């Protein structure tokens, strides 16, 4: 059986409006209730069964479409006359086959009063269903509220623990090369800022929101006159503004501007973009830029009407990450606990690590030393001799400590008390001097691995900040009588700790509050998450 529908009413068959299907002549029915879409069935000149709207005047030769799915939400099939039961039965069978038993409408024989009684019963049933659904919804909401109030309560001890954990340092995620030029920030008067993202410099960030703590921007010219630098952190695919920063020109000066979030982000948005513009009068600030290099997709997009860059360039930035949800340590959380804020940490780059060299000769017929890729260095210990290697580090400004971890990467190793040590020396010293600690800038203790596979941290803290290049000496030793099999000791996770004030000479910029955020007609529907303003302090 094939049922056709007039094309003109085809989409309306699948709208949610309740429907009644009349098997009989529409002329015989008075008062078509407007709360329903009334449908009628007729046979056309080719003996096809055609579904149409009962409210419409029949057309001479309507365009027809075959129905694969029965109309939605049909409450009843009404057969007022005795002779139409056959077609009703066929229709019901088709309905069950194509739409499933649950969709088959109630078959009503009889006069209008019979139909009305059926509709009344269905209406009462629907009402009852909605009341139940609403009651369930209210209960769901109540349970949700209750759970927020009672179940998610963090014990004070855990809060204290978290506060301590929150002292985790910021870690440098990415930095880009030495600036080669600069770009002027687009500047507008208070009333003439054009709408849309073309009004700003746009810089895609190669980092996701999860763990993002902030960034440093390099200012080559702070701007003059009365004006403010505006920064927005946007999630491009959601049109979501995550944070807004403002900085008056007179608070800016040449150098790195630390821009931070109040807390390290916990969300997982991917398409982060920084939008930069200025508002006011005078000369706008200028920001340092550098060639994008290998990945031009991270090039900045200048504001509309600005000159294009001669080569793909990006803003000079340092991106910082941290533990999600943890304060970025600029708001005095640490001082509230009476602790000094943790210094930021910079990973030592792979290029330096790859230059590792042996400083005491080893003769072996199996791999015992080498750069293993990434920041991993293999240095096997041997009996009766301390193995030694050195990594030459370039100058790291305001360096206060160097750290790394050490463990055995061979599961079959059973030797315990394997020893490792880290010594920081000025360049040019021998391994023997380093091992003795003669003239050392910093020395870690000999760390012994209680379990060979569990990593231990080595940390050498300098007595005062160091500015020049240095040598990082690595040592490993075998315990007396220790088995030599499988003792693949691997150093990794090399990091340099620098002094907090080394990041920038300007005060940290924190996001502004909802109230201070400039109105933006274009973003009226954009959901936003914003942080409280902490005024820039000198």
């Amino acid at each position, binding site marked *: 059986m094939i049922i056709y529908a007039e094309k003109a009413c085809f989409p309306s068959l699948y709208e*949610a409006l309740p429907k009644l299907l009349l098997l009989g002549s529409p002329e015989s029915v008075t008062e078509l209730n407007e709360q329903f879409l009334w449908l009628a069935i007729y046979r056309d000149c080719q003996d096809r069964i055609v579904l149409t709207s009962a409210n419409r005047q029949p057309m001479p030769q309507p365009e027809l479409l075959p129905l694969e799915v029965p109309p*939605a939400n049909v409450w009843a099939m009404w057969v007022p006359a005795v002779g139409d039961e056959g077609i009703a039965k066929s229709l019901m069978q088709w309905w069950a086959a194509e739409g499933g038993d649950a969709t088959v409408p109630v078959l009503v024989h009889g006069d209008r009063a019979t139909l009305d009684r059926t509709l009344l019963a269905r209406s009462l049933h629907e009402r009852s269903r909605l009341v139940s659904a609403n009651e369930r919804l209210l209960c769901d909401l109540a349970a949700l509220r209750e759970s927020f109030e009672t179940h998610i309560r963090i014990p004070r001890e855990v809060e204290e623990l978290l506060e301590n954990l929150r002292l985790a340092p910021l870690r440098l*995620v990415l930095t*880009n090369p030495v600036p080669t030029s600069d770009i002027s920030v687009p500047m507008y008067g208070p009333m003439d800022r054009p709408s849309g993202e073309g009004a700003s410099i746009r810089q895609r960030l*190669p980092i996701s929101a999860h763990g993002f703590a902030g960034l440093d921007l390099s200012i080559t010219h702070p701007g003059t006159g009365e004006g403010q630098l505006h920064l927005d952190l946007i999630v491009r*695919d959601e049109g979501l503004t995550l944070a807004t920063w403002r900085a008056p020109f007179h608070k800016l000066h040449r150098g790195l501007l630390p821009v931070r979030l109040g807390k390290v982000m916990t969300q997982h948005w991917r398409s982060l973009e920084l939008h930069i513009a200025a508002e006011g009068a005078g000369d706008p600030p200028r920001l340092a830029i550098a060639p994008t*290099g*290998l990945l031009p997709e991270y090039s900045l997009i200048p504001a509309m009407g600005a000159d294009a860059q001669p080569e793909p360039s990006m803003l000079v930035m340092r991106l910082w990450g941290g533990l999600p949800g943890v304060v970025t340590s600029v708001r005095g959380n640490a001082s509230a606990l009476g602790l000094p804020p943790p210094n930021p940490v910079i990973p030592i780059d792979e290029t330096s690590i790859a230059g590792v060299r042996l400083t005491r000769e*080893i003769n072996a017929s199996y791999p015992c030393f080498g750069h293993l890729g990434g920041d991993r260095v293999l240095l096997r210990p041997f009996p009766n001799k301390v193995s030694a290697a050195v990594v030459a580090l370039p100058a790291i400004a305001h360096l206060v400590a160097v750290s790394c971890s050490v463990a055995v990467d061979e599961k079959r190793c059973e030797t315990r008390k394997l020893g490792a040590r880290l010594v920081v020396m000025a360049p040019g010293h021998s391994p023997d001097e380093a091992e003795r600690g003669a003239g050392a800038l910093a020395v870690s203790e000999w760390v012994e691995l209680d379990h060979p596979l569990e990593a231990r941290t080595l940390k050498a803290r300098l007595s005062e900040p160091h500015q020049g290049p240095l040598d990082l000496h690595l040592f490993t030793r075998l315990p007396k009588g220790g088995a030599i099999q499988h003792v693949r000791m691997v150093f990794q996770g090399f990091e340099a700790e620098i002094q907090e004030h080394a990041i920038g000479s300007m005060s940290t910029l924190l996001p502004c509050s909802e109230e201070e955020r400039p109105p933006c007609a274009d973003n009226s529907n954009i959901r936003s998450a914003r942080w409280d303003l902490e005024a820039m302090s000198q």
Partner: protein
Amino acid sequence: MQEKRVPEDADRSAVRVAIIIPAYGQPSLTAEALRSALNQRTDFSYAIVVVNDGCPDPSTRDVCLTFATANPGRIFYLQKSNGGLSAARNTGIDFSLAAFPELEGVYFLDCDNRIGPYLLQRLLTALRASEEHIGWAYTDVDKFGFVEFGDTSGPYSPLEHLFRNVSEAGSMAARRMLDAGIRFDTQMRRGVEDWEFWLHGLEMGFHGVHVPDAGFRYRRRGESMLVAAERDFGPILDYIRSRHPALFLPGALLAREIAEKSRYAVYHPDTGRVSRLTAPSEREFLDRDDYLRRLLQSCERPDYGRCPGHLVVMDENLYDVLAERRMLAGILWTLECTVRRATFAAVNFRSMADSKTTPRWLRENILCDRSAGTVPLPEEVQIIALEASVLLAHARPGGNFESLALQAAKRSEGLVLTANIPDLLSSERNAAAALTNLGKALADIALREHAHLWRAAPLIRYRSHPAMPRDIYAHLGLPSIFPCDVPASSRQRAALIVEPGTSDALAAADRMRDRLGRQWNVDLVIIGDEIETSLLASHDYTEIVLLPREALRVLSGTADHRIYNGTAIPCLDGFGSEDAIATLAAYQLVVSVTSHLAHPLMGSLRQLKVETCCLLQAASSHRSPGELVNACAAFEQAYDSIVAEDRTALHLCSALGIPQRKLHLWHDWRPWREAPQPSLES
């Protein structure tokens, strides 16, 4: 963020996009999907079509109807008998095509996923800006719940799409693709039907286009991960391949790989440029620095095929001579086979006029420095080959390029092959030095392009690497296949297999080549380390492939023959057998010219839909007719036809049980005129 909001009272006749949501269970999650669908910010009208796939839970209907009631003219609700996800989507497609005459595309949103507010606008804008062959727009898969990011960025690669599902169901299909009759396969009810749908589009000539930052969010829960873990993908993928043999037969895969030029980068020290190719017929020249930049980019961002996975260093002069002698593809293939065994492969050619054999491959092992875990480069070689990733590992300032980091998974450390090929123009034996210089140039460019800074960036890199053929052919159980050229013309490709030690084998092969006629491009495949010099030069083959047997042997002392009813049948070792099958997999016809070595390969080739033939010609073999026929009889089931030289041999074949229907007399035998039609049967 400049997109405008859709007019609420949009006329449904002007609907440009339909969001099709198959609904089955999970009513609260469906509400999230519907809410995100209603929040689209577009400058065109769109509709939402919910198809209840016969869900027995009435709450699914209740939720959908509630939303439809509250959004008349925006949400359409269809409830059908349960037919599976594919059938529900098809119902939504057919409804949308019938209901919305101005429809330009449909977007498929599963009822537990969500979309960002600009998704429809960005996908349709991309489709509108695309060329006619673009059939769908897809985006990254941002998974929430258990967080994961499916980075599908980069230019669309049809070749990559054949082995990796880069287009999720959450993509927009253009009207032109739907008008071409492409629908979801309703037989597929165990998942992955979306991959089949897009591949159907690919088979009909459509490509996808990636749209960044569109905002597709895929819900990843423990349940869905469990389903994914428990699902047996093998049979599902086999089914897809059987549905689209025109995409997945070896010849079809190879044709795409040849078009993408994604296998070899050949650096020419004498001209300073790089050839990018899979087969010599389709070659692109790159500037050296352009190639090195591609190489560095290949491990940072997805762009399948832009940087070949194999690097070969060879003078362009030598390249041209080998191409002229129709030996280039074969030499590159030998190197590729060697690099599967060793960190690098090097070749030296000698020209000994008094030698009676050619190429006469000899092998020398280069041993590594175990304490440093590196293998030194050989001095004075003309060609050197390695996986490009090996060079990349050294690409840092001050990196040492005189030796290479040992690839622990390889059976050998470094292999130098020496071949005697008379009258070969002498070329500089500076390939190793050129590789060292290339490495230094790579390090310089890495510094200039700040590669080490990008290396530190937290990017998603699971699709970022130079293109290796093993990804493409893994489902065939092969690491690669020999890129015998697949011509655009209707001529078919045949390979004739000969092995050394048979005095008239080449003459027999030559007669077979003549018999095949001009409809066929015929390659000569020699499985062995040498063949008589005097016989090689005069033959008119499209390509001559030399597959050194002994020089590439991995294990010594393993049994190298088996006895069948008293006849010794030589066998290749595991690597050798794999090499040989991979060499022959893309031909339409493979003929064993009285070669015993070829017999054990034929069963695998038949599985790959290759027509197999055995030519029995006692005069061209040092073996007796009885031995020849007996060996053939051992593998008779692997052959489509067996051609005997004379009636005596024919009777012998029959006597040893070879079925009559396969037997042909040389004078009566006619080769196939047409390529075998691909079969739907797996």
